[in-house]
């Protein structure tokens, strides 16, 4: 990833604050004998970390660091290998108390359940309210690791923070369009059913993307699909190599209203299929960016 990311100045501060809250959240029952949890899913992994129960083992830790980033995994968390093919011998040798998976890995259930009880936690089910599902997910995970109080605390802290951010937002925000570049010609546009939409709803912001999305809450479209929409662009990094240069020469991109008047926003990477911690991080970053850019 390029080092020249336009990170908002208060980013480090936010991370620090967030860490502090995590610490506070985890103090209340940190002495309980936490069960050893293994998980294949990054969304569950970040929830676990936020609950103050560091998982014993997670799949594809390097990629987690790159694509989810925060909240960070402790250095002694064991890497299980690929998410779709976790190393079963290794997993068995760790003898975890529970294995948490999402429906995507359902076909592994019979094998994993020979090692430890497997819990299949639903997330991003089409047709359900994403935020409510994230709350349910958090509660279920918290119950499974025997820390229901931490779950409630995490939900409350996140919702309170989001409400606070909503107050902080400068008034009269137009609709936003949240995109992530796949290459110089194609973007994922996030809409109904996704994490970003859930955050926008709670922040009271409007999403300009009202077209159908896939079960994960995004549509893959060519840049030309954005022309019709009168909205401020929010570009979630990372930008693939060479895209910035190619966009500079793209007539269509330059003609987009928010690019023309310089109000488009770039945000550092946030896991787009995350749970409450990612939601919160996205909300913090977005609010800060909207505040900073508002004077321009």
């Amino acid at each position, binding site marked *: 990833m390029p080092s020249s990311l336009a990170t908002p100045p208060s980013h480090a501060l936010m991370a620090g604050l967030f860490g502090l809250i995590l610490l506070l959240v985890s103090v209340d029952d940190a002495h309980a004998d936490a069960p050893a949890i293994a998980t294949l899913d990054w969304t569950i992994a970040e929830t676990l970390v936020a609950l103050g129960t560091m998982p014993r083992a997670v799949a594809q830790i390097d990629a987690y660091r790159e694509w989810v980033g925060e909240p960070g995994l402790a250095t002694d968390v064991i890497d299980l290998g690929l998410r779709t093919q976790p190393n079963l*011998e290794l997993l068995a*040798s760790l003898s975890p108390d529970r294995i948490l998976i999402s429906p995507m890995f359902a076909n592994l259930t019979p094998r994993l359940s020979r090692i430890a009880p497997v819990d299949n936690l639903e997330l991003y089910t089409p047709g359900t309210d994403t935020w409510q599902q994230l709350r349910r997910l958090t509660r279920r995970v918290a119950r499974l690791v025997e820390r229901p109080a931490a779950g409630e605390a995490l939900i409350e802290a996140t919702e309170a923070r989001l409400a606070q951010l909503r107050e902080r937002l400068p008034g009269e925000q137009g609709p936003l369009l949240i995109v992530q570049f796949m*290459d110089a010609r*194609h973007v994922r546009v996030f809409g109904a059913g996704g994490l970003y939409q859930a955050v926008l709803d709670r922040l009271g912001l409007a999403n300009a993307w009202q077209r159908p999305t*896939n079960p994960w809450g995004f549509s893959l479209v060519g840049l030309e699909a954005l*022309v019709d929409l009168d909205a401020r662009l929010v570009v979630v990094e990372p930008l693939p190599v060479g895209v910035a240069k190619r966009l500079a020469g*793209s*007539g*269509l991109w330059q*003609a987009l209203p928010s690019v023309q008047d310089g109000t488009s926003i770039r945000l550092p990477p946030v896991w787009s299929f995350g749970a409450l911690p990612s939601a919160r991080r996205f909300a913090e970053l977005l609010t800060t960016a909207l505040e900073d850019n508002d004077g321009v």
Partner: protein
Amino acid sequence: MASRPFPLPAPGRLCLLLALPLLGLILATLQAHEGPLQGLQALFDSSGRSRDALLLHYSWWPRLVIALLAGSGLALAGVLMQQVLRNPLAAPTTLGVASGANLALMVATLMAPGLLLHGREWVALLGGGLTMGLVFLLAWRRGLAPMVVVLAGLVVNLYVGALAMALLLFHQEALKGLLIWGAGSLSQTGWDGVVFLGPRLAIGALLAWLLLRPLAVLELDDASARSLGVSLKHLRLAGLGLAVFITGCVVSVVGVIGFIGLAAPNIVRLAGARRLGQRLLWSPLLGALLLATTDLLLQRFSGALPTLIPTGATTAALGAPLLLWLIPRLKLTGDQPPGMAHALGQRHPAPGRLATGLALLLSLTAAAALLVGQTAAGWQWLSTNDWGVLEWRLPRLLAAAGSGVMLAIAGTIVQRLAANPMASPEVLGISGGSAIALIGAIFLLPSPGNLTLVAAGTLGALITLALLVILNRRGGVLPERLLLTGVAITALFDAVRGIVLSGGDPRGQQVIAWLSGSTYYVDLNSAVIVAGLAVALAVAAHPFSRWLDILPLGAATARALGMRLDRARLALLLLVALLTACATLVVGPLSFVGLLAPHLARLLGFSRARMHLLGAALVGALLMVLADWLGRQWLFPQEIPAGLVASLLGGAYFMWGLRRL
């Protein structure tokens, strides 16, 4: 090469016929925006500033122009390749140029992204050139005979595809943009693509025109061409070099577009354009019309979908049936005794002893694979108190060995049946067919279990088998036609995979994991079944060994010896299909064991069919057991699927063995 006249109109009328719906589509789109006049105006300037004008000027018009350019470029490259190789099936995709470019861009994205900043097209060109070189190396010894070139292209395509799968398996998030590119999207955001491609194609067309007269000489046979004082080598090199350059330019702008390069020249030829000059004129025109019409139709009908339907993969998917239709119409040289390298490897004086030695080696390797491995604490011998680990290791060992045996036997039969060292069950497309069904199951059913997946895979394999039998029933089972059917089905599989993966759905990871061929999903019960099936089918293959001794001698000899050729071929084909389907369900469609094990066995000195089958089965089992174990240890705790390791190892052997083919 296509000799019968066909009820197609002359090339000019055909193009006109296609141009009408295209024009209609263009007018309809413009009407839907601001009307034809304003639309035409938007082509030249966007100063109107309305949204519609912007969209038309920066996206719609450039996309139309790029579709026309890319279509004509690919068709031109196809004509050149087909002319130089005297092969109606040569095309940028069949020769591996496109897949090579794809792999090169993936490697560059991961290892040297700086390269992509200046000169994507050169990276693509280099990759495409290298893979095509590899195809020629494989086919060189057989004098670049059309069938061998196409088969070598298929093998290289599969191999390069396997490498790309390996990269995808570990870097799916980083490579998701390239998945779209690999499926060929024509979407444009300005005129830069046109400005890049236009002049290069113009130069390419000019050079092709300059080469017209010398290239026309290639329609004569080599001796007469040489007697006219033409340096064939240089001429071929120039023709192919030009074709690769054009393909590289097109591919680097819009990605991999399937089948235009193959279909347009062949349709034009079937429509009656015999001379090179005519084909050089009409093919690009037809290619441009085909691609632009497909693309406009796609834009019209896929607009409401939440995902992109890439044009390139769609043309490939539409092209596969076309190829299936084309195959019986191509005159293939069927029944001559093939000049196969029978002398491959010395015949061993005592193959029985050799087989015993191999079996011993296999048991030793199996024991080592069970007992040695890495854990969280590093390398360890299995101690007496953790026999529990065997619960994980034993099924994989059995499944690996079993599928190795099945693929090896299938490969031996196909190679002898087709009298072609390049044949293998992967090549027949049965693996591809069952893979298409599996992809469908993963994406269309909510959280499918393993039993469902197995059922879907078997169904796919059976449908492919039925297709193979139906298509090859008429006029007897010709080995070449059989293999070409496999080429078409594999192409269809590639297209389906491209469309599915380019959408960026997280479930794609699961598809990739299975496609790369792993023993991972096998539990003890199914492993025992696989191993048992392998032994049973191996025994079932035994009575066929007399046929297999005779078949490679050619159809005439076989008939003279009283064989009922068609029936024998059909029976063997059924056995192959069964073996392949079983093995594919375990290790995925991409392993090369079916290609390699028979080769290795022959090199070791097993030459009579009975011993060849036995030797290949042992080698296949050994190869897979070794690959499975290596794959689990190499990048611990990440597991490289056994099928991938086998093809990586096999690929190394293959390059080394090139000179023997």
